[in-house]
């Protein structure tokens, strides 16, 4: 008799196990100002953003004085684990729990998911690490800003830079056949043709980690093109680069990598040496950048910040300044304050919060990845070869497809 009563109880306990969390109380307007850093703490983007992004945000909060409008500032870390629905739930919870800003969202799917939540909850979301230009295009919304880089900027910086030179006119493109790769291809093609160049051949390979690029690389070699463009990301880029060197492609062609970060080169310096890429910021670019990078290095054991981590500091700082200026954390007021505003800091040179589509403009840098022998100090992998002014780096307003509803 006792037993069958305990069975349903046992089941109930089993079902609820781990589920016992009271929903957090909504923070009143006098509670702390909260920044939720939604980043990848343990996966492929952990070095690019991750703990470093959280640290950078905390640095911004501390430098700001730890308080704004008389209220303390809290930084909350949320691991999105590269899972869109999961990130959206955690973002909702964060907003309901009093978060006023969602920051980072390194991973395009996560960025889009959180942007939708931000719109619904009327809270500001600043995407630094996500690449998709849809954030300022088809998926633009009133409360989301795209801060660091996007596919258009990458293509038009690297593409224009290389195609301007006489030995960079003809291209062979190795393209991962999914949205990101296709977008890169079309953006790069436009930039290249703009400079009188031509994509001689573009091979779109089916996406899903591809490990063997031999047939494509042979095709690249035989095409006689001057430049090899790698329009893919992650493990694909690594594999393609490794194999390109195996086939000796790097000896006869210039290699342009669509998307690459300092952290990637830290992990695999030999693989990426000799390629040309675009970044939104480089720690050793000038004294101002370096000064901040030194502060970061002190807290992070000598590690140097990636552009995304720097952008998190910059975005957090700018947002806090806006809160102070507006006198509240109300998202509508902040959005009105930011739209169209120009600013400058160590990260965003010539910065502007573009009102048309919430694309944040700033300088971009075309850099070469140096081989180990030429690197003068740890992590100093890049050499800036061209600075692209904000007006030219990003998609012009006239071409924006954002259906502005604010």
């Amino acid at each position, binding site marked *: 008799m006792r037993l069958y009563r305990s069975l349903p109880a046992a089941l109930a306990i089993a079902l*609820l196990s781990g589920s016992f969390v009271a929903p957090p109380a909504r923070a009143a307007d006098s509670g702390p100002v909260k920044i939720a850093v939604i980043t990848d703490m343990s996966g492929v983007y952990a070095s690019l953003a991750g703990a470093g992004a959280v640290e950078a945000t905390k640095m911004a909060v501390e430098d700001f004085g730890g308080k704004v409008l008389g209220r303390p500032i809290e930084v909350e870390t949320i691991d999105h684990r590269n899972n869109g629905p999961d990130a959206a739930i955690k973002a909702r919870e964060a907003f309901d729990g009093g978060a006023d800003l969602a920051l980072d969202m390194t991973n395009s799917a996560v960025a889009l998911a959180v942007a939708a939540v931000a719109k619904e909850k009327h809270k500001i979301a600043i995407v630094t690490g996500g690449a998709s230009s849809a954030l300022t295009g088809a998926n633009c919304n009133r409360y989301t800003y795209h801060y660091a880089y996007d596919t258009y900027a990458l293509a038009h910086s690297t593409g224009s830079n290389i195609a301007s030179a006489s030995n960079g006119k003809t291209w062979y493109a190795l393209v991962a056949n*999914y*949205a990101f790769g296709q977008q890169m291809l079309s953006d790069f093609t436009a930039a290249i043709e703009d400079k009188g160049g031509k994509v001689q051949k573009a091979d779109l390979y089916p996406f*899903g980690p591809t490990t063997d690029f031999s047939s494509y690389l042979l095709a690249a070699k035989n095409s006689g093109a001057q430049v090899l463009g790698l329009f893919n990301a992650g493990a694909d880029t690594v594999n393609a680069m490794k194999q390109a060197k195996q086939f000796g492609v790097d000896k006869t062609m210039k290699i342009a990598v669509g998307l690459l970060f300092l952290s990637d080169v830290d992990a695999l310096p030999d693989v990426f040496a000799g390629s040309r890429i675009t970044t939104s910021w480089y720690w050793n670019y000038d004294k101002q950048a370096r000064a901040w990078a030194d502060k970061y290095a002190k807290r992070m054991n000598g590690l140097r910040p990636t552009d995304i981590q720097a952008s998190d500091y910059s975005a957090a700082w700018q947002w806090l300044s806006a809160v102070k200026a507006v006198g509240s954390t109300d998202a509508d007021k902040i959005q009105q304050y930011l739209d169209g505003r120009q600013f400058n800091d160590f990260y965003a040179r010539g910065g502007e919060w573009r009102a048309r589509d919430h694309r944040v403009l700033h300088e971009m840098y075309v850099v070469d990845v140096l081989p180990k022998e030429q690197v003068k100090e740890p992590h100093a992998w890049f050499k800036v070869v061209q600075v692209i002014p904000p007006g030219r780096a990003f998609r012009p307003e006239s071409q924006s497809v954002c259906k502005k509803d604010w």
Partner: protein
Amino acid sequence: MTLALLGSRRGMTVAIVLAIVGALLPWFVYPVLAIDIVAYALFAVAFDLLLGFTGLLSFGHAMFWGGAGYVATILIAKAGAPFPVAVAAALVYAALSAVVVGVIAIRRQGIYFAMITLALAQLQYFVAFQLGDWTGGENGVQVSSRGTLFGIRLDDDKVFYYAVLVVAALGVWFVVRVVRSPFGSVLGAMRENEQRAIALGFRVDRYKLVAFVLSGTLAGLAGVLFAVGNRLSGLDGVDWHTSGKVVIMTILGGIGTVFGPLVGAGVYESLDYFVSKTPIGDKTNIVMGTIFALCVLLFRRGIVGELLALRTKRAKD
């Protein structure tokens, strides 16, 4: 043993307890997470119909879960379809694809069956990837408004949760009915000894196919609830890791017990979510993997299975 449980007063008690737990869940847990738990619970029960009651291990069930999710969200987001229409269309998709997959896969048994389902699921994954214009590729499909059902607006998370709960409860009830029906008895007989069933004149393949289609369609229903609940469908839904996840949930809860998968799903989802928020959050996969490994090694009957066995043993004393 399980069937006896289902028919008895004890079964009713269990059902009532679960219903109460279900009703109160969104007050204890974030509503969208609650939706996820219930959706996965239905998914696991549907899966168990195939695994526990028919004896077929499918390693590609995510194709119904995710595929139906895609259909529903694409219709709502891009065609502005009303919620009931989207659900109906998604169910049709799930059923049809289950028929196709079933016809191809059921000729084989055991590991071959599992491999074929995996292969077909992978095919669907790649197709979903390639059709980026419809499925949004890596970024997935976002739905801004869930629409209305019988005039009730579904955008409030708690409201939608109760809709999900009702639908899931109906789904589970349906599975119980199937299992306790003559059809279900034949399935059980087939599972025990297929040769004998054939000798008795049963068209075994037909039964398997029907079971497969029922399982797939219900899995699709669960997938729609999940996708619309999260206002998002994406490649994770059709990824083989998701197929693996539902296998884990079912085993964790107990194969062949109707309530087992429910419990398994609840425990797994809650654990996964809350562990990931703790300081050891980045080791979540190891924790889940270890729990699963222990289950397979030691607690093969799953939570509910072990509890039931305990009860029977004690009753005998």
